[in-house]
């Protein structure tokens, strides 16, 4: 394999695919699926075929294909493949444009993962960023604008970090950053800029306000955005902290209970993100918004793991990122299937769809288990690793926040489960059909890893271990079915055996007592017509909880940003008055500029 092949398959091929599928019109999603499938096949074939290469397109792009890249590419490729597969039957308007932009985003994401110099990182980062912008623009210009402002802020924070490194080293290579040219005291600045820059893509607090809007766009795209692209933030933070800076440098800034003081604040930020995201998710009635806030919260966990920086924590973060890629895109696709069939977004307006869309229900159920971290799914293992990482170092703020967030995750997962799929079927949804085949196939593809890696977490822990070892962080103690840590660990084999036993027991119980299915109109209200709002409990769900939180929910970060921007825009109108429209004033400016320039020049000379 040479540089051009690598670059060609993972970057140029999607770009070509983007061009081709634009003209594919109706068949664009199918073409795009084929293109992502090809790069997926190569990704599978080239495992272990690692190396670094340089591409010269006028500027030199340093690309490296290694286990970290491969691991993240795996998520990216699976998620986009199934998202595009889903979109085959979702009858999008202007499907050509959709497929094109998805593939552009995919190319950008692959580029970011391959990049080992800041120029190509920034190049692909921006490519990915504006593809998302245009994809959001398909739904709403206003949402897109909100996204773009934060996307650009993220890029500019990266630029600041990159620029400081460039000032000291004069090189864009990751590898040169540690050459010792950068003074020790400068590193915290660089890392802060880089981590915040990448963190915006992960929607960490307080830069999360774009996410609920962007995540309200077309579901196949949002699945890719939440499942795939947001992981680039995690990748970037991992790279900047543990590959560019390196763990020993981080440790040299002092430690707090064995955790670098450079990383700990970000772990706190992650905990805050997890907490705020989860709390806000609980109160959402719009399923897209709920999943969006949930996504924010879950990525907070990843941030915690990356911030804590112990092998267990990073391993947990990686594993959780991996899981999140699958279950969150599965959830978005599931929601997409429901929205596609019913045309409704509000949870309170749905209900009982589990009877009409049993397969979708089953897939979503798995995703929800994984999301909530219920044992038997891989989501449980990754969360467990993160808890252990926090608890083992006695972090009294991070660990409780995580636990609260985890409880919150149960609450909102249950809201989806109950509000959408259980409960009573609405009249208008009587004729809803099961989602079309490609959609089910897409969801199935995403569900498989969740199940497999819950049985044999060792496989994925093997890859993660390789990543950790390669970057000199440490290593995990794991076997095929379990992992162990200083304070415990988890053995999935035990869990599965217990589960199967329980399942058999439950089956027996179920068979022992005959259950009767109650029809909606098999009424227990004694002939009174029930008010429609009272019929379905998903209406005003968690009202007591919301009332409790009301004083806090009043303070919205969203509104703070709005005030901030209003304040600045007002200032802009003041500045505008310089351009008076009177040519004589302009002539006076010219004279004044001349004098000022001259005097500065003479003063410098003097």
């Amino acid at each position, binding site marked *: 394999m040479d540089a051009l092949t690598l670059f060609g398959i993972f970057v140029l091929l999607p770009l070509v695919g983007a061009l081709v599928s634009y003209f594919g019109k109706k068949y664009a999603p199918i073409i795009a699926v084929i293109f992502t499938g090809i790069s997926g096949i190569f990704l599978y074939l080239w495992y272990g075929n690692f190396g670094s290469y340089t591409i010269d397109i006028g500027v030199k792009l340093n690309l490296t294909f290694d286990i970290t890249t491969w691991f993240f590419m795996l998520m990216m490729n699976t998620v986009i493949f199934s998202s595009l597969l889903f979109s085959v039957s979702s009858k999008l308007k202007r499907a050509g444009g959709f497929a094109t932009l998805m593939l552009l985003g995919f190319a950008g994401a692959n580029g970011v993962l391959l990049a080992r110099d800041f120029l190509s990182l920034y190049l692909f980062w921006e490519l990915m960023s504006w593809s998302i912008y245009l994809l959001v623009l398909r739904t709403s210009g206003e949402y897109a604008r909100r996204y773009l402002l934060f996307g650009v802020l993220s890029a500019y924070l990266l630029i600041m970090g990159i620029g400081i490194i460039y000032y000291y080293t004069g090189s864009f290579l990751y590898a040169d950053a540690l050459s010792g040219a950068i003074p020790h005291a400068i590193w915290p600045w660089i890392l802060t800029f880089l981590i915040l820059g990448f963190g915006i893509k992960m929607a960490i607090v307080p830069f999360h306000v774009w996410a609920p809007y962007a995540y309200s766009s077309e579901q196949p795209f949002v699945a890719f955005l939440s499942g795939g692209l947001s992981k680039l933030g995690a990748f970037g933070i991992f790279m900047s902290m543990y590959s560019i800076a390196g763990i020993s440098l981080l440790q040299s800034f002092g430690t707090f209970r064995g955790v670098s003081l450079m990383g700990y604040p970000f772990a706190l930020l992650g905990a805050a993100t997890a907490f705020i995201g989860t709390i806000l998710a609980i109160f959402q009635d719009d399923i897209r918004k709920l999943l969006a806030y949930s996504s924010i919260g879950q990525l907070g966990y990843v941030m915690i793991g990356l911030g804590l920086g112990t092998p267990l924590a990073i391993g947990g973060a990686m594993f959780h990122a991996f899981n999140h890629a699958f279950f969150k895109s599965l959830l978005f696709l599931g929601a997409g299937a429901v929205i596609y069939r019913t045309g409704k977004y509000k949870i309170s307006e749905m209900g009982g769809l589990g009877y009409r869309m049993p397969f979708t229900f089953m897939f979503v159920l798995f995703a929800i288990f994984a999301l909530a971290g219920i044992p038997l799914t891989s989501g449980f293992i990754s969360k467990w690793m993160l808890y252990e990482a926090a608890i083992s170092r006695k972090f009294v703020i991070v660990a409780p926040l995580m636990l609260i967030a985890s409880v919150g995750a149960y609450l909102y997962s249950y809201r989806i489960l109950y509000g959408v799929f259980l409960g009573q079927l609405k009249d208008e949804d009587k004729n809803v059909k099961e989602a079309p085949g490609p959609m089910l196939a897409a969801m199935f593809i995403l569900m498989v890893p969740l199940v497999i890696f819950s049985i044999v977490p060792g496989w994925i822990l093997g890859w993660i271990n390789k990543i950790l070892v390669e970057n000199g962080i440490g290593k995990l103690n794991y076997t095929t079915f379990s992992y162990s840590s200083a304070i415990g660990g988890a053995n999935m084999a035990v869990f599965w055996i217990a589960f199967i036993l329980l399942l058999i027991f439950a089956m027996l119980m179920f068979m022992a007592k005959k259950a009767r299915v109650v029809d909606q109109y098999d009424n227990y209200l004694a002939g009174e017509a029930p008010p429609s709002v009272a019929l379905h409990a998903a209406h005003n769900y968690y009202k007591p909880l919301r009332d409790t939180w009301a004083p806090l929910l009043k303070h919205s970060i969203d509104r703070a940003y709005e005030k901030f921007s209003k304040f600045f825009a007002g200032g802009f109108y003041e500045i505008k008055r310089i351009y008076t429209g009177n040519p004589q004033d302009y002539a*006076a400016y010219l*004279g*004044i500029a001349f004098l000022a320039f001259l005097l500065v020049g003479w003063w410098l000379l003097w």
Partner: protein
Amino acid sequence: MKKALAIVLAILIFIVFALAFVKIPFGEKMSTYPHYYNPITNQTSNMSLPQHYLTYGKNDTGATNMVTAIVVDYRGFDTLGEVTVLFLASTGVGSLMYVENKVKKKVRRSNAVVETGSKLLFGFIILFGAYIFIHGHLTPGGGFPGGAVIASAFLLLYLAYPKFHAKHEKLSVSESIAGLTFVIVGLIGLIIAGYFLYNFLPFGLPTYLFSAGVIPLIYVAIGVKVGSELTAIVDSMMGVRE
């Protein structure tokens, strides 16, 4: 307020300029001028640029009037630009003063003395203008003053005969032909000698009318061009009369 600012600004500008120009000697001998340097051959000459023109100008161009030699030959390209600028001005004024729906204005006839006098003078002024630009390489003057004099003859007609109207098409054709002459002369130089605006005709004897190669040719073209352009500007600004 604005006036005060303007006065202060003007005074300050005066002061800073005065401060700079104190450093610049006035009326110095040419021998004190710095010597020029040829950036292509990387050689520093043993004389200053004006000295070179004054010493070798006659041989280089065949013109007696050194200003003309510089304007038309040494820096002929500037002059081409200059002609273009004037052409642009006439075109620009023409396009700005263009009226689609021509509203004709009432005008008054001027008296007989003015009419006869200007008729009488017209030919002489034209002749004088032609004299100026034809002898541009020998005496002070040249295409621009000559053209301006010719335009003034037309201006006189405009004043004397309010109904007088020079045909725009004719003016622009003469403008164009004169301009084309200039460019074509330049291109012929490029073809013959490899230098745009090369003086390819024989220089002849200095101080004679037929000397200095293409300079008189170009000056005639410039004279015609400037004359017709200025006339066109005047005509455009006058608007449509009846």
